[in-house]
């Protein structure tokens, strides 16, 4: 104890217990003292909601190569991904999946006992251009099994966890990261964790949009914390909308549903994707499909003229289109699927649709709309997870980021399905390993005096404000609506400008938000208020970066600038928070052997 703060000292402190955090913890804790801090209990993290599979070119069903995975990922990224990082991703994916299997992950199996794989959007046989089976799956709960398996290994390895600790600040001393300030949620006690290395693995911020697949707790804490400490955020204008969220709720329906043969149908009963992506059709990449859905709706071809379309996974529909497309199984026979096979391969989404819509997706099509899903951008890092503090790619010593909060960048302007799980694990592992290397060469940096003071002031200010007319929920709902209307799938300058003005007003109103709960114990009123502050900042950064990028690339579609503009915009944005507001700088994309080409699916 020092004053009224509890002090801890670990070599590496990891924030977040999802896939990236746990992977970093497993690797780092083999060599040095590690603590994992999470604002939730273990296995509650958002990794657990990933459904369809993890991509790796194992070739268990048909010919496949990591190099094909590399090309697909780069093409999927609309050429904004850094090609050195993509190589690491796709080549390490293969041994990573075997490692998960060795840890006990219960993958589904092929008849010969190997890991089963299914087709997924944008993953192709580079020669035939047809979908390839690359997504390794455990039913439609692959993320759940990954999260469970990694946590199991952490128990086996006796990793130290601080559960329900909300990290509120990173401590820097003379430009070196040396610790964290965290709130113990159950008691309200503040803690300082001194560390040689800090790894942020706090996930994304889909909660800035109204319709999202993201968890309530996905509030971008880590990204906002480092932004406030002068570290930039990269490519924030790129946020993926997954094409198939349950209508109005946003709950994810895996792309695996289309991997198993499901098709999107508009209000006229047409399979519209063949008009937008003649080869890949319903397995084109997500940005292409989300745009197509919006265009169908705009043309009045939504179901009943409304703002949704159908995802049809009824066996008779799937088999009809298998036949029309001449789809073959790996053994050369015509591809067919039965109702039982759909139930076995997609049990969770079948359950979601039954629970929330009261319909059986084997008998009725599922109403879907695009749903805010995944941050391609985030804290810029190098290939070893080291956070980069400027456009010259200089690392900030002691600071690491991995998983969705990080931007390596392997996803560029649009992430391929299954690559998030690969990303969080490959770069979680590399961060853990490099943090150990760093610890071996570096001593603890002295903590500055009263390092918890800024956090204390923030919390005090939130706690002491009177409960006026400004509510957390109102401001949050307004932000989510504004982002959905103006900074969603389709964007144009006047709309984004409107959004920026609205967000700045909301930030002013936020300064007057009061909370009702004044207690120390489990004060989620206080935490929701703090989290809203993070969301508002990230929303503004997203909008500002989106306004500046006057081209359309991947998921960032500017109606006033419909073409990709490689001459001016083949570059990553870096958003800095300065006293004058958000400042954008840019850095080049790493291109190796795949120069940008036109992108057709």
């Amino acid at each position, binding site marked *: 104890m020092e004053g009224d703060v509890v002090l801890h000292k670990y070599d590496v402190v990891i924030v977040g217990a999802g896939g990236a955090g746990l992977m970093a913890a497993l690797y780092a804790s083999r060599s040095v003292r590690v603590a994992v801090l999470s604002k*939730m*209990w*273990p*296995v*509650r*993290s*958002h990794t*657990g*909601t990933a459904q369809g599979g993890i991509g790796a070119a*194992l070739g268990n069903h048909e010919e496949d190569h990591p190099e094909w995975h590399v090309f697909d990922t780069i093409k999927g990224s609309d050429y904004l991904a850094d090609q050195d990082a993509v190589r690491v991703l796709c080549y390490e994916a293969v041994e990573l*999946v*075997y490692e998960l*299997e*060795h*840890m*006990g992950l*219960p*993958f*589904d*199996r092929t*008849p*010969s*006992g*190997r*890991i089963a794989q299914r087709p997924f959007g944008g993953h192709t046989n580079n020669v035939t251009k047809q979908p390839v089976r690359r997504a390794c799956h*455990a*039913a439609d*709960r692959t993320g*759940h*099994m990954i999260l*469970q398996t990694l946590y*199991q*290994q952490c*128990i*086996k390895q006796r990793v130290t966890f601080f559960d329900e600790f909300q990290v509120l600040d990173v401590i820097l001393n003379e430009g070196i990261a040396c610790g964290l300030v965290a709130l113990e949620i*159950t008691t309200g006690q503040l803690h300082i964790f001194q560390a040689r290395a800090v790894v942020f693995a706090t996930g994304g911020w889909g909660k800035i949009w109204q319709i999202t697949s993201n*968890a*309530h*707790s996905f509030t971008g804490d880590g990204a906002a914390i480092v932004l406030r400490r002068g570290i930039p955020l990269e490519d924030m204008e790129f946020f993926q909308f997954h094409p198939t969220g349950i209508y109005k*709720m946003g*709950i994810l329906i895996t792309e695996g549903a289309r991997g198993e043969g499901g098709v999107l149908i508009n209000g006229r009963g047409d399979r519209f994707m063949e008009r937008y992506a003649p080869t890949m059709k319903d397995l084109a990449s997500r940005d292409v499909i989300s745009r197509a859905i919006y265009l169908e709706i705009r043309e009045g071809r939504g179901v009943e003229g409304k703002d949704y379309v159908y995802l049809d996974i009824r066996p008779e529909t799937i088999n009809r289109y298998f036949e029309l497309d001449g789809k073959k199984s790996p053994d050369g026979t015509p591809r067919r699927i039965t109702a039982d096979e759909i139930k076995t391969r997609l049990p*969770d989404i079948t*359950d*979601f649709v039954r*629970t*929330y819509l*009261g319909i059986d997706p084997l008998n009725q099509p599922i109403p879907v709309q695009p749903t805010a899903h995944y941050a391609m951008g985030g804290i810029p890092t190098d290939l070893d997870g080291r956070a980069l503090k400027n456009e010259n790619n200089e690392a900030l010593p002691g600071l690491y980021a991995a998983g969705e909060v990080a931007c390596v960048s392997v996803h560029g302007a649009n992430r391929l399905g299954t690559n998030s799980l690969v990303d969080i694990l490959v770069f979680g592992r590399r961060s853990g390993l490099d943090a150990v290397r760093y610890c071996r060469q570096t001593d603890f940096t002295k903590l500055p005096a009263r390092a918890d003071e800024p956090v204390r002031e923030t919390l005090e200010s939130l706690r002491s404000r009177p409960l006026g007319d400004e*509510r*957390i*929920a109102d401001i949050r709902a307004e932000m989510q609506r504004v982002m959905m209307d103006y900074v969603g799938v389709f964007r144009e300058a006047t709309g984004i400008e409107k959004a920026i003005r609205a967000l700045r007003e909301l930030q002013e109103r936020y300064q007057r938000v009061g*909370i*009702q*709960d004044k*207690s*120390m*114990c*489990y*004060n*989620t*009123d206080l935490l929701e208020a703090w989290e809203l502050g993070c969301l508002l900042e990230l929303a503004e950064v997203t909008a500002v970066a989106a306004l500046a990028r006057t081209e359309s690339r991947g998921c960032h579609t500017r109606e006033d600038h419909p073409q990709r503009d490689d001459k001016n915009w083949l570059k990553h944005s870096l958003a800095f928070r300065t006293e004058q507001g958000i400042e954008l700088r840019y850095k080049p994309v790493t291109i190796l052997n795949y120069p940008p080409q036109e992108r057709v699916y």
Partner: protein
Amino acid sequence: MKVILKIRRFNPERDRAPWWGYYQVECEPTDRVLDALNWVKWYQDGSLAYRRSCAHGICGSDAMRINGRNRLACKTLIKELGNRITIEPLLGLPVIKDLVVDLEPFMKHYRSIMPYLVNDDPPPATERLQSIAQRERFDDTTKCILCAACTTSCPAFWARPDYIGPAAIVQAHRFIFDSRDHGAEERLRILDAPSGVWRCRDIYNCTEACPREIQVTQAIAEVKREILRRRG
């Protein structure tokens, strides 16, 4: 529709004993109980404490006792319950505040059954092989999200908190029947102890409580049978 939520409240800093809070909320029949709780928290009483995250039945945060039955608030629709809904924290675990209970006793039981693959053979260069049937053998118990709904619905657990409880047995089952695992013997020894599987009296509350529809009682019975089979 108008719904009256009757919520068990307790703030250790303020209350000497738990009390009932009554809240009127306007809901759609298809809303989740979690939506109603959020409405109360966001617009009526910000001090209400409960856990929630994914809001679609996967993260396991919001298990609670709803109209006398353990369920996930995000997987229970208002229309299943009618317009009077009673919400209490899970039984058998210490209450921290309102609907938030201390999960540590539950997680301790979970950790005690060696919930990880035990196999010290050097792994092959690629995957270990497993047939579709071998994989199917333990599929049901891989669905567990550790929400604690089963264990805290079990009268045997309420009576004796040292009982390892259904969730830990489900998690053990997931490994005992995994063809790749070599730890069954030690795990079964733990489960054969006085605080282990024999405390189960086949009451089936756990099976009814499971939001993942795992056949919990059956899994426990299979573990019991396996212990007996190995005893010869």
